């Protein structure tokens, strides 16, 4: 059977939407074997699928476990594209430094955000949990990300987000990086009050906002 590029892209998108990692990997292999470039397959196969997932999740037509499976399928394809992509000069969608603030050991929400960001082409540096203010500052200094993401799961650890933003200002780093915060007790009001650029109530929103913030930063 002859290879049809359009059908391959469509099937790849669908494999991401359905969260089928085996199909996503097989379709990626088929595309590469038939001379499709990694960038073309990413742009017209995998990413459109993930865009549908993001939109459906935002609209309440898809739920978190389905999104996680979609991200897993996306990642299965991305793993095969990586060697090709690293050879080319394709820029990532943006660079994000992320961590759970000092005193807080919760990381599942942060991990889901990382997973989805990587799935949509971001380079992410994960600082882990219980991250000291100084560690956030030195990571921003050293890696110069477009975006700094902070997560907190407890009302008692939320103030650490303010400390990080204040330290960014004191270190003259605040202008060079967009800040996004999230986590169970964090609200839009709190994010605004501490001087964050954005607040995300869930992982899907975080990805949409990071895309917007990275575009602003790149423009």
């Amino acid at each position, binding site marked *: 059977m002859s290879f049809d590029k359009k059908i391959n892209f469509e099937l790849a998108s669908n494999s991401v939407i359905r969260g089928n990692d085996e199909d996503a990997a097989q379709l990626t292999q088929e595309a590469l074997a038939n001379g499709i470039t990694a960038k073309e397959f990413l742009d017209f196969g995998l990413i459109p699928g993930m865009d549908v997932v993001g939109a459906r999740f935002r609209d309440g037509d898809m739920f978190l*476990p389905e999104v996680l*499976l979609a991200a*897993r399928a996306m990642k299965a394809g991305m793993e095969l594209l990586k060697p090709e992509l690293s050879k080319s000069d394709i820029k990532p969608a943006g660079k994000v430094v992320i961590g759970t603030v000092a005193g807080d*050991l919760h*990381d*599942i929400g942060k*991990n889901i955000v990382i*997973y989805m960001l990587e799935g949509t082409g971001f380079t992410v540096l994960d600082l882990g949990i219980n991250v000291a203010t100084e560690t956030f500052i030195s990571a921003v200094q050293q890696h110069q990300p477009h975006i700094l993401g902070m997560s907190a799961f407890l009302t008692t650890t939320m103030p650490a987000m303010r400390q990080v933003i204040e330290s960014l200002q004191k270190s003259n780093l605040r202008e060079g990086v967009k800040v996004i915060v999230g986590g169970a007790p964090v609200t839009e009001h709190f994010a605004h009050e501490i001087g964050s650029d954005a607040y995300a109530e869930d992982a899907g929103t975080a990805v949409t906002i990071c895309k917007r913030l990275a575009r602003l930063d790149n423009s």
Partner: protein
Amino acid sequence: MICSDMSRIVPLTITEVMPKPESVLMQMGVPRRAAVSSAVQSLVENAIEILSQYAAPAGVMTEISEKQFTIVYAGEGCNARDTPLEHIFPQARRLAVYALTLGEKISGKIAGLCNSGDVALGGALDAAASVAADNGSEFCEQFFYNLIAKKQPTIHDTCVLAYSPGYCGWHVTGQKKLFQLLKPERVGIELNDNCLMHPIKSVSGVLVAGAREINYFEPHWDFCEPCTTYSCLQRMKNLRVLAKQTMTEEDNVIRQENKF
């Protein structure tokens, strides 16, 4: 110095904490009875299977007096100015503090899955473990109720409800005094400098045994505003449903008695 010698290990096993798939899905934000794909169902079933292999539940409980709990509750003096629990516990008939954990291995497994890039399974396992910890908490409530019922068989209107530091105005630093009294280190639970429990899938708090009505309150405190769970509303709703069921059962008994 507060102390207690009425301490006991809670006979908690994996059977008591095992979550149902629909509870795990709800924990992951899927509404009750929503249709999900077979892939999602397999993901959740896989997570529950892993949980059954890695979770090692253990719990400890100590019955305490109101006076003792007043000291525990005051904690480090960081509680909100007015809280529901400070109105509830003085009306309790019996009080106990408790802590339980699912053990270190399950937390390690969740982290391992996430670090290896399988956040889908790691996320599902995390949700399954959270439900299991809640189930463990419910088991402790029932265990305390049964202990009371053994000595006082006529306690129809008594219920047991758990409250935890970090929620509803009870500051998380309240853990310090609770740990001093309970010593949950003997079942492997430790407190870090930020008053967070290790292993992370652990629960602690007070078990309040008393009339159902003492637990009813309006969630209009300052600290309710940023709360995203509103689990208090569900707990109160459950109590009201239980009260209605009990009343119906009692009505039936009366009707049966009148028949003869």
